[in-house]
């Protein structure tokens, strides 16, 4: 199997507090990897360190290696390039305060694409890939803030796709959405994994079983178990995993 990203013996500290303890997970290419676990277990922290959004947090210290195609992302890699290659969709939809078109064109423009024709094409393709083209094609010049929450989140996914990332990180992307919007986004994710490597943090275990290929269970900063999703949920090797998925705590 090909590993797109590798997390090797990562320890992460917020000042003195250790948020991740010796975590090792290989991330398979063009698959969906789910991180599950109770609040405060470190799964979001780990996700955010995969495109170095944790750099924004003061006192955050990372030891160990995180590799993208074998290259250390905390080594000499340019952060902006890393984030172009490893995109992110946030928990709360965060479209920019501008038109739908400009929201999608923002990323390509950032990376130097100026030609109107090229931008038009990227906008259309990104919106189509995020399954929101039909709803937006007649209102591209309208403000993105006028859309519903579910549409906004799919727009944010389209925006993440606009810079042709290789990996997409999703931080509880449906926790602020209604069941119908959630369904649409889950459907979309299964489409996305044909082209992209997806890592998703979710509180919703049914969601993890529905969409992910492998699942990693976190508890108190430790990665307890990482396995094929079906195995984790039907036949967990660790007692702590079993307790969590059967609802005994968390």
């Amino acid at each position: 199997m090909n590993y797109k990203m590798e997390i090797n013996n990562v320890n992460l500290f917020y000042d003195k507090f250790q948020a991740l303890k010796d975590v090792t997970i290989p991330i398979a290419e063009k698959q969906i990897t789910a991180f599950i676990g109770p609040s405060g277990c470190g799964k979001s922290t780990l996700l955010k360190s995969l495109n170095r959004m944790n750099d924004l947090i003061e006192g955050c210290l990372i030891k160990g290696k995180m590799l993208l195609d074998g290259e250390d992302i905390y080594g000499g890699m340019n952060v902006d390039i890393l984030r172009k290659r490893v995109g992110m969709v946030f928990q709360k939809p965060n479209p920019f305060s501008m038109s739908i078109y400009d929201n999608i064109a923002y990323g390509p423009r950032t990376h130097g694409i100026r030609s109107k024709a090229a931008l038009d094409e990227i906008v259309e393709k990104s919106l189509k890939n995020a399954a929101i083209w039909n709803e937006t094609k007649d209102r591209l010049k309208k403000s993105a803030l006028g859309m519903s929450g579910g549409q906004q989140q799919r727009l944010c996914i389209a925006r993440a796709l606009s810079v042709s990332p290789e990996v997409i990180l999703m931080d509880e992307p449906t926790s602020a959405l209604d069941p119908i919007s959630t369904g649409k986004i889950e459907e979309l994710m299964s489409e996305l994994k044909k082209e992209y490597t997806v890592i998703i943090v979710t509180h919703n275990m049914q969601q993890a079983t529905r969409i992910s290929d492998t699942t990693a269970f976190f508890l108190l900063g430790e990665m307890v178990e990482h396995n094929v999703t079906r195995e984790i949920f039907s036949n967990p090797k660790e007692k702590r995993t079993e307790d969590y998925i059967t609802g005994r705590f968390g």
Partner: protein
Amino acid sequence: MNNASNVNRGKFREAAVKVMFLAAACISIIAVALICVFIFANGLPAIKEIGLKEFLLGQKWKPNADIYGIFPMIIGSLYVTAGAIVIGVPVGILMAVFMARFCPQKLYKLLKPFVELLAGIPSVVYGFLGLQLLVPLIHGLFPEQPSGSGVLAASIMLGIMILPTIINVSESAIKAVPDNYYEGSLALGATHERSVFFAVLPAAKSGVLASVILGVGRAIGETMAVVWVAGNAPIVPDSILSSVRTLTSNVVMEMGYSTGLHREALIGTAVVLFVFILIINLSFSAIKRGGKKQ
């Protein structure tokens, strides 16, 4: 029984407090209403006597000959306000962006009090600075002009004076933008600079626009500093170095010795100024409403 009387006493107290708040609110409303009544009651008859068209569009202001045209002053106010915007707005907004998103904490602690001090300096002190520093400087640059005072000097002066308004209001608008705009931009591989200017600043645009309008309000109403550096000839300025008289300076310079129709014409000038401010305030609240709707 006892309980009932307690409840009654509580109700009474609440009613009393309500009346007190209402009275406090009324005082400010009454003040505005009185100003309106006074200024319109005294100004409108004069405007009627002079003729609205002659008053607003008349090119000549000659109180000795009973000619009262305030067109030069209207244009003068618009010119210096536009000048203040050209100078003050870019500097103010960039400064606000710097303070909100680029400034190191230590420098911020130093800068913030300075900006607040800038807002607190009495305008007559600004005028003094303008007269002593700005006017000679401009005269030095353009020695063929009779004096350094005029549109340029007044614009620079006002541009500096509106800075604290623009900086403070814009800065809080920029700081109020949720971090997720900034993070969303970073996550696309944008630099800090691009994220601030192209994702955060557009999200703050209604607040930034509001700061500009407040600044315009301050610039158009400013008097003392302008009188000292504007030259004050009641003519339509023909260049940025030309002498200029604003609506405010027209009133403040002649009110002391005016009588009769002259005095009323000055109050009429104040009516025009008042209408200007009214328009500015209305557009300010319209923008605030528009910003909330988003």
